[in-house]
């Protein structure tokens, strides 16, 4: 019964569906993110692998450097529809708890990232891994599922800080990328552990655990500070 469902779950669903429906109709953000990711991979190819060397050992690093930059793009776009159409005033005025608002935005960012990764990970394997193994791709998919949580949570928090500040397009990468470095280190390490042909599962698990811890810590930080990021 929908009436028995707690209010926050209905609000979360409504807000998340609003973002996803808007994205499905306009396809502004995800298409741009995906194109950016592929262009960035091509740049990496010419910047580091132009002498025809095998880039398999660097594939994990390239993938996550590209995904981190793509995430900045997606996070930067995430509040734009609200700002342009003055939807934000309406949402902030509605009796929606701020934590539900943040969680919905994190969910939308998570979905954008996942949509990009579904294409970007196979493309990365095609471009940079000499003999890609489907099982390895599934394991990299798991890394994406865990890493996206941390990226989306932190991204939704910092995006609001950048939203109300001056020079927000410049500010967001400067704020977001240093905090994202641990994710890049661990996710690239996990990807490398399975993609480079060594299949070091102990190392893979260690890095995945780290990504989980990262997501939990920033989840707590976001939960502790969310009510202070929106104007009263």
């Amino acid at each position, binding site marked *: 019964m929908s009436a028995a469902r707690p209010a926050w779950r209905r609000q979360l669903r409504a807000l998340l569906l609003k973002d996803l429906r808007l994205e499905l109709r306009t396809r502004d953000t995800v298409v741009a993110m995906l194109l950016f990711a592929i262009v960035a991979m091509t740049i990496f190819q010419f910047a580091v692998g132009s002498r025809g060397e095998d880039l398999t050992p660097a594939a994990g690093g390239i993938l996550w450097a590209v995904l981190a930059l793509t995430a900045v793009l997606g996070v930067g776009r995430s509040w734009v529809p609200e700002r342009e159409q003055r939807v934000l005033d309406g949402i902030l005025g509605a009796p929606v708890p701020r934590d539900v608002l943040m969680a919905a935005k994190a969910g939308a960012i998570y979905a954008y990232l996942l949509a990009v990764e579904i294409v970007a990970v196979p493309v990365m394997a095609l471009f940079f891994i000499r003999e890609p193994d489907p099982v390895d791709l599934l394991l990299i998919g798991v890394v994406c599922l865990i890493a996206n949580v941390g990226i989306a949570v*932190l991204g939704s*928090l*910092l995006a609001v*800080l950048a939203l*109300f*500040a*001056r*020079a*927000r397009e410049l*500010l967001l990468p*400067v*704020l977001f*990328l*240093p*905090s994202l*470095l*641990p994710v890049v*280190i*661990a996710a690239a*390490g996990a990807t490398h552990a399975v993609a480079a042909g060594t299949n070091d599962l102990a190392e893979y698990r*260690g*890095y995945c*655990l*780290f990504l989980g*811890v*990262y997501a939990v*810590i*920033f989840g*707590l*930080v976001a939960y*502790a*500070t969310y009510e*202070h*990021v929106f*104007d009263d």
Partner: protein
Amino acid sequence: MTDARPSRRLAVTGGVSAALVLLATYGVFFVAPEDADQGIIQKIFYFHVAIAIVGLGAFGVAAIYGIRYLRSRDERFDEISSISIGIGLAFSVLVVITGSIWAKASWGTWWVWTDPRLVTFLIVLLLYAAYFVLRSSAEGERQARYSAVYSVAAFASVPLSFYSVRVARSFVHPVVFTQNGADMPNSMLIWFVVTLLATVGVFLTLLQIELVQRRADRALRRVKARLEATA
């Protein structure tokens, strides 16, 4: 009339810190035994590690005062938080520089990317440099509020950087403090503790100088406003 107590407190802290710095320098170079393995270059460890610990402590102080600001909206807490981050940032630069000197002496290169701890200090540096970018682009009451939120978020990544040392497996960086206590003889440990205290003293002195200066600045502006009002 402005209160004279902060200035007096500053004089006391400054004096004690200066004495401790002199004592630590004397002790480290003339009393503490020379390391059998590394020789004279090991001396930099006393300052390197002490500055690293106090630098991270400064970021901790900033996060605590950030939280206190968010709870009370008292501007003094925001002031302490932002000054602490400034000092912590300066200390982090010193940590990276002294670490780099040590790396050159013991491993032969100025920078070792395979050593996660040196690299994570660089990350911490970038992280807190962004704090001032945020601070300068937010205005009014938002400035303090956003700074406080960011000081908490940034401090959360400090334990992550330490955790990454254990996960990413350091092969190079000497780990001085293990779970079994400090890995050094007592004659060295004493001088390390003195250096650590001296560094804490330097941090407190710098913090108070900045606080006194900002207070004076505010008092001056008040006087100016009053003069303009009467003129």
